[in-house]
């Protein structure tokens, strides 16, 4: 079986500075794959390249058998790749419902869209309670829920989550992580970027450790969680 997403020797640069220096990994359908690493390792750059916001300088991306390089960002969504960006980036002056509807921008099945809006409310009841409220008034955790719910509205084959736990309280983070497991159980494939290595690795099937633009270590979530060097560098043990 070929993987849903295959990244080969991907290189991305900001001007002359190479932020991603030839990384390769793949994501099988139904899996949770995580990229962990410190700030500046190139994780966010990788996701932004996959969703078309950045153009790679080299390498290959195959999604569902199709090359993604050169495809504009607004077309990539329609192929089934959704991206919930770092920092959440909800539309602050639109309501929660409007934010969710924007996630379904390219869909035309009105009934299906309504059903999925309802599903987002079921997944995150607080969003349903505040549906008419401007999204900018939500707390950080609620905004994260909205960003995830919005990304799901496109019915993606692959959901990319960038730092969903950033700036959240431990309880809120727990809730987000549980939701990720629920989504996997419902059949969504997930590519998760996290600085919280402990949380990410404990629910990932596959993990890749990134350091200054390169993948330095790969393995199953459990393997990496018990790896000596990972424990030292990312889990705060010595």
């Amino acid at each position, binding site marked *: 079986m070929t993987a849903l997403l295959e990244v080969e020797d991907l290189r991305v640069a900001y001007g002359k500075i190479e932020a991603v220096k030839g990384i390769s990994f793949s994501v099988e359908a139904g899996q949770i794959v995580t990229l962990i690493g410190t700030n500046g390792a190139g994780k966010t750059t990788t996701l932004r390249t996959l*969703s*078309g*916001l950045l153009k790679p300088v080299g390498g290959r991306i195959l999604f569902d058998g199709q090359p993604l390089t050169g495809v*504009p*960002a*607004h*077309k990539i*969504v*329609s192929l089934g790749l*959704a*991206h919930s*960006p770092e*920092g*959440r*980036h909800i*539309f*602050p*002056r*639109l309501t929660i419902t*409007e934010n969710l*509807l*924007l*996630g379904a*921008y*390219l869909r035309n099945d009105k009934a299906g869209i309504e059903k999925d809006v309802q599903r987002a409310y079921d997944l995150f009841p607080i969003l349903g309670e505040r549906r008419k409220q*401007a999204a*900018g*008034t*939500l*707390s*950080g955790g*609620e*905004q994260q829920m909205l960003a995830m719910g*919005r990304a799901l509205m*496109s019915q993606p084959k692959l959901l990319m989550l960038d730092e969903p736990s950033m700036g959240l309280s431990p309880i809120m983070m727990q809730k987000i992580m549980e939701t990720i497991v629920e989504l996997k159980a419902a059949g969504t494939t997930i590519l998760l970027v996290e600085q919280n290595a402990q949380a990410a690795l404990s629910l990932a099937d596959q993990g890749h450790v990134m350091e200054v633009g390169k993948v330095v270590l790969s393995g199953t979530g459990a393997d990496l969680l018990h790896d000596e060097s990972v424990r030292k560098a990312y889990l705060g043990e010595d």
Partner: protein
Amino acid sequence: MNELPQQLANGLILGAMYGLIAIGYTMVYGIIQLINFAHGEIFMIGGFGALTVYLGLPSGFSLLAAIPLMIVGGVICSVAVSVAAERFAYRPLRGAPRLAPLITAIGLSLALQQAVWMWYPDATKDRSFPQFKGEAIDLFGASIQRGDLFVLVAAPVCMLALGLFVSKTRAGRGMQATSQDPDTAKLMGINTDRIIVMAFAIGAAFAAVAAVAYGLKNGQIGFRMGFIMGLKAFTAAVLGGIGNIYGAMLGGVVLGVAEALATGYMSDVPGMELFGGGAWKDVWAFALLILVLLIRPQGLLGERVADRA
């Protein structure tokens, strides 16, 4: 003539025109943070488009029946030039330092003025614009020229249509999303290039409607008419809170009314006898702008919403 209802009506008529033009500044700024200084010329070209259609109609054609055709002609010309400007002048500079498109806009403004001056027949001097014949109409104690009724109907209709478009349609939501966060809008599948073109086109269409109103009111149009009207409309957009479409219309009306009141009453204020009358109205308009910006830098309806909690 110096009665309050009359001054208010004059201000409203002028202000509705400012507001219609201001929409174009505010929409483009709201999405790509460009002050499109050529927008005044887009307005002017709408006027010449409308005039061209009128001159092409058979004689004896009633002006009332001609108005819709003139609007269509004006809108087509304004939109075509505005969309071409976006495509060939501004889009290549997307991502360049903000000064570059701004200077381009100023250059384009001069180029468009000169193009009309050179190539439109007899446009080196003002061309006369058709006028409605007949008595002025009394309304709430103000006497309103028939031609001025046009803008009093057109401006609310245009605003209502735009408000519905922005809030109720998918493209309208896409436009709001693009203005709030363009990169994330792309992640939603929104073709932001198309949204930008749409903003330029809507602004141009509204400017063309304003140009028809201007022609009907003043009885003549000229290649330079876009300069001061554009400047005033830009002032209105800033006054109302740039990026906000309702603010643009409100800013236009406030500016128009303030000008009319200053023209009518400033000379009655003790010590200000010298500063009344039409010659000083522009001074009062800009004084109002400075005052509002001192007290409320974001403009009347401009908002500062926390993007993150």
